[in-house]
């Protein structure tokens, strides 16, 4: 009951001075909105690709009806057909297409043409064409081999059977977890965790403020155990953190179209992330001598952890020491948790990141609590 009384007073004070509202809700929501608008500008567009094929050759048919049709259907390319190579070259020069492929009338040659600024599109088209050619070659070689061996199956029937036969080599998507989160969610989660490490300070920092304004001796002279005072401050941080993260998750989902993933998994991630943030600020308060010093230290810690953890850009991709350091931060594991939750995966897919966050909480929070206990004295 006493803890709740202390908690209510502190929360009321935080609401009154609005600083927690600004740092926990308004500022991150504003930044998320702005950054979301930036990343949701021009989306990846279909790559215009040209094709010259008579349509009568096996290679031309395989290419047009196979991989190129598939890529067009999924919106990766937009296929333009041209009568001959010169028409395709003209289209390339005009920028009408980024790359193109010419199937020789005899069906025995493929020619890939690239636009001046379309190296990637050209390379992809070349890979797709090469792959198709290999498949067509394989069928042709099988037909020839069967004839040489005296087989009686008509070539067309044999080719159809070969194409229809199950593949002997399986291609397996070996990616652990999901394939990634969309830019809006990335921005929302990054900003939310970044500001989380600022907003949670308003609870535990209250210990030093109570000492500064002289109210701590009065609290400790009342029938209140020191642990109750400390617990109330930790709870204030926890509540502010949970409210901030939940609000930003809902805000970015409903208003900006972010996809955080399974609600149960996200709730688990938010709780673990907030606990890690509270542990961090507890350690800072345990070390600091004054509210000002604690606030300054927390700002530095939040900034360093945010940068290392990928709140702005991924340090993990940099490799080496930067990647290792990134994996030591709660921000990295929070983002990793969301990545694993994408694609409709359930909460169990986030267990590893949650465990990492809880481990961080224990490693940082236990010494933090021991040090912060020293602050609960007159």
């Amino acid at each position, binding site marked *: 009951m006493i803890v709740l009384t202390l908690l209510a007073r502190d929360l009321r004070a935080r609401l009154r001075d609005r600083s927690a509202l600004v740092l926990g809700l308004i500022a991150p929501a504003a930044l998320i909105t702005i950054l979301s608008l930036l990343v949701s500008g021009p989306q990846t567009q279909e790559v215009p690709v040209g094709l010259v094929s008579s349509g009568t050759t096996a290679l031309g048919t395989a290419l047009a009806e196979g991989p190129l049709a598939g890529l067009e259907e999924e919106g990766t390319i937009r296929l333009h057909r041209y009568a001959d190579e010169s028409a395709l070259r003209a289209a390339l020069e005009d920028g009408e297409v980024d790359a193109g492929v010419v199937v020789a009338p005899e069906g025995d040659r493929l020619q890939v043409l690239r636009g001046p600024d379309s190296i990637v599109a050209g390379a992809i088209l070349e890979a797709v064409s090469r792959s198709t050619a290999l498949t067509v070659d394989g069928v042709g070689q099988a037909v020839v081999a069967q004839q040489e061996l005296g087989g009686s199956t008509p070539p067309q029937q044999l080719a159809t059977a070969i194409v229809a036969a199950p593949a002997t080599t399986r291609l397996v998507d070996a990616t652990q977890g999901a394939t990634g989160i969309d830019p809006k969610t990335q921005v929302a989660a990054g900003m939310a965790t970044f500001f989380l490490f600022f907003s949670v300070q308003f609870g535990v920092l209250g210990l030093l403020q109570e000492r500064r304004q002289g109210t701590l001796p009065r609290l*400790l*002279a*009342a029938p209140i155990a020191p642990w109750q005072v400390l617990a109330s401050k930790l709870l204030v941080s926890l509540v502010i953190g949970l409210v901030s993260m939940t609000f930003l998750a809902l805000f970015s989902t409903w208003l900006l179209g972010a996809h955080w993933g399974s609600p149960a998994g996200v709730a688990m991630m938010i709780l673990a992330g907030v606990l890690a943030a509270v542990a961090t600020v507890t350690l800072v308060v345990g070390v600091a001598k004054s509210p000002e010093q604690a606030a300054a230290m927390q700002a530095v810690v939040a900034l360093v952890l945010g940068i290392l953890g990928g709140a702005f850009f991924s340090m993990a991709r940099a490799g080496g020491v930067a990647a290792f350091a990134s994996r030591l931060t709660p921000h990295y594991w929070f983002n990793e948790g969301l990545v694993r939750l994408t694609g409709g995966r359930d909460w169990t897919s986030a267990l590893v990141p949650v465990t990492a966050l809880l481990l961080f909480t224990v490693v940082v929070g236990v010494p933090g609590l021991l040090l912060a206990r020293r602050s609960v004295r007159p």
Partner: protein
Amino acid sequence: MPEPTLVVTGLSKSFGDLRAVDDLSFEVAPGETFGLLGPNGAGKTTTISMICGLLSPDAGSVSVEGVPIRPGSTDGRELIGYVPQELALYPDLSGRDNLTFFARLYGLRGAPARERIAEVLETVGLTERAADKVEEYSGGMQRRLNIAAGMLHRPRLLILDEPTVGIDPQSRNAILESVAALGESGMSVLYTTHYMEEAERLCRRVGIVDHGRLLACGTRRELVALVEQHDQVVITVAGDATAAAAALAGEPDVLTVSVVDDRSVRCMVTTASATLARLITRLADAGAVVRDVQVTEPSLDSVFLHITGTALRD
């Protein structure tokens, strides 16, 4: 004899090489206002911190109404009301909200809390300003609210640690009146100060503390007797002061007689109230006309000076 409200026995506390409190023992009776008088740095606040359970003593014990007070235990805390030397209020809350919060810490809620808050606001004269934020109060008003927060839960022992430091004379007077009223209401009060006049005005008994030690303890009369201080009577006559002095010399209870100037004599007597009438009669018999009489009882100032060898320093 009723059980003392506060019993302090052999209390000691050191900070490194500094012996802040050294074997301090005293008692406060029910309804008594007891003063701890000493200069800054004498160990008063350290003593109070140990009495409130905020600080662990190196040795000794504290009990309030028989309940031992220990750091880490909340036993007996509700018996104590603590008014720290520094303001212990939330400046962003109103006076009433501050009191409501502190009342809840002691389990006082609802209508009883509202009634009690109204009472203490009236006692400290802040009813009119109860809805204003504390940060808008004057220093004296903040001090009075600080006291109100300490006595809100009707403690058996109210501890006031130098509650009048740094405020204007008018506010100080208001605070002293409030404290005097508390003493009259039957609450035991432990009052620390380095102002002699406050101790003399409020406290039935006074403990003189310096360098962490309780040098003397008792009523003013007992302390004066302890240091063999005497009442001083200065008599101004219409005639010759030397003749008047001669007339008074040798009177019973008159310890010394001296001439101050050509119209005044000074007598040191054991008890002025018992001797004064006889002195005036003796002068009249000797033909002297008494124009003026001034009686000065020994002050705690002179007692402090006698006991510590120094004047009370700030």
